[in-house]
């Protein structure tokens, strides 16, 4: 059921491997036997009803959540309770949140250079050049000296993307990056994500933007009640869904949009 077509830009190198991953919140079995392999350059869209465990799944990849059973290997390093390994993986995995989570006490540029300086030990001058480069990339270099609170939602989310990119990650995780935005700002953020995908970034996106999925994803994964129900290339996924629950979900999404 995996993507059959060999999409250009995707290499054989496995970036993320989840094998039989289970997770519980107390008694609640939130992830049930998740198996997922992501190759370098893949753009994967994760969708499913609210509460199905999408966020939990991607948050396990950078250990914002801890899985209790199974294996997660990111860029060749297995996630265990070893703090050094966790920090090493987090350096290579960028994450963009629904609510941006910018640091409100720092300017836009300071938000961007913080991790390169303190985690990568990059000289400030170099980090600032890098920060400006990525702020240009997300098309807001003119806001560098402002504070996040002075920007619109769309601008804040683009800063958040730039902040992640400044760590020059190998993988980017997006958790509903456009869900908290006013409709007219969704496009500017999606455009940024599209251009990132075109550059060959390995991306794992939780989103309900089906247009985005059709345009850039090479694989769409549907989750429900903590399980991966179905995964396919976007063409097949949207036009010929296999599972009843997928069909139901897609019909709901389409009637809402």
């Amino acid at each position, binding site marked *: 059921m995996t993507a059959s077509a060999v999409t250009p830009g995707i290499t054989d190198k496995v970036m993320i491997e989840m094998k039989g991953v289970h997770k519980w919140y107390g008694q609640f079995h939130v992830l049930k036997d998740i198996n997922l392999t992501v190759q370098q350059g893949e753009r994967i869209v994760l969708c499913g009803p609210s509460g199905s465990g999408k966020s939990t799944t991607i948050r396990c990849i950078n250990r*914002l959540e801890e899985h209790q059973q199974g294996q997660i290997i990111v860029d060749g390093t297995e996630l265990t309770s070893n703090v050094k390994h966790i920090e090493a993986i*987090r350096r290579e995995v960028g994450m963009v949140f629904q609510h941006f*989570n910018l640091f409100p006490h720092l300017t836009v540029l300071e938000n961007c250079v913080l991790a390169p300086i303190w985690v990568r030990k990059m000289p400030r001058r170099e980090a600032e050049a890098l920060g400006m480069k990525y702020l240009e990339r997300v098309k807001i270099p003119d806001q560098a000296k402002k504070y996040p609170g002075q920007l619109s939602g769309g601008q804040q989310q683009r800063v958040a993307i730039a902040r992640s990119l400044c760590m020059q990650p190998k993988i980017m995780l997006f958790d509903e990056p456009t869900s908290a935005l006013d409709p007219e700002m969704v496009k500017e953020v999606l455009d940024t994500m599209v251009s990132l995908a075109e550059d060959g970034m390995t991306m794992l996106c939780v989103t309900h933007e089906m247009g985005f999925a059709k345009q850039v994803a090479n694989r769409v994964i549907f989750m429900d009640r903590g399980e991966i129900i179905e995964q396919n290339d976007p063409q097949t996924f949207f036009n010929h869904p296999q599972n009843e629950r997928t069909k139901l979900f897609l019909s709901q999404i389409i009637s809402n949009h």
Partner: protein
Amino acid sequence: MSQSTHVPHPDLPPPSASTGVIGWLRANLFSSPLNSALTLLGLYLIWLLLPPALNWLLFKADWSGSDRSACHGEGACWVFIKVRLDQFLYGFFPAEERWRIQLSWLLAVVGAAPLFMKRNPLRMPSALFMLFAYPLIAYGLYTGPLFGLPLVETSQWGGLMLTLTIAVVGIAGSLPGGILLALGRRSKMPIIRSVCVVIIEFWRGVPLITVLFMSSVMLPLFLPEGMNFDKLLRALIGVVLFESAYIAEVVRGGLQAIPKGQYEAADALGLNYPKAMGLIILPQALKLVIPGIVNTMIALFKDTSLVIIIGLYDLLNSIQAAAVDPNWLGFATEGYVFAALMYWVFCFSMSRYSQALERRLHTGHKR
């Protein structure tokens, strides 16, 4: 179908808020019958209280002279304060050594000045000087031997100098102490967490006066024979621990107010715990709790006078002592008014500074 062109409405200046003094009076003082009544009552009270107060404090007060014969009794006799001022400021610090205290105060004012001014290149050096060099210099000046000066026992310290010493040490010590306790109380490690909870709840549960009493009377009983350290130092340690517990709870309130997303973003960027706390969480949390911290510090400043219980004479206590001097019986009121003024000046300055700090650290719109 004809197309109407839309002419955008021009931006207008806002209406002027008030129409002169009359408008302001009407809007703020006489907006309703109740408001008018309260205004009139307020004016009546001012008329009743202010003239006698000013007469006593200033116009009918005695200013010149050197003993009580200069006091005529119609108003305050500030001669009492004037004659005893040195004692109020320096306690029993030997007169010929008082330049050391004056020098330390001068150094503090000059050294810290850049911190109170707008962004300037001297801020960082000034902060480093005040944090690391100044405490050592002040210690050397006050005690003496470090700089080859004659030793002045802490039992001779007193007055404003002692008040400031206790308050500054208490504040400077309890801030880092409180932050560490607050972080410890939120630690994931059960042992660290329990230890911090016990410390906080113990020190918060006992009155400061008990802490001082214990430090002075009880502690020596527990210490091994021959090991006896300075009474003031013991009191200072007690004050720092006591205040740390309060600051810890204030800071914890700030930590709890920081959204989970901030921790997650810091983690996701690969910042380790000390960096996430020091660069992301604490700067925001401390900014949120500036009012609470300053509140605690103002309370501490005034509570320093409790050291009377262990026989130390700070500002208030040395004034009280002077007021029972047979030569100056009957001038306690002047003494207390002076004490109130001194305490008020320092506490009000702290309050203003904290407000300025909050304004300076404010970034962008709150949502």
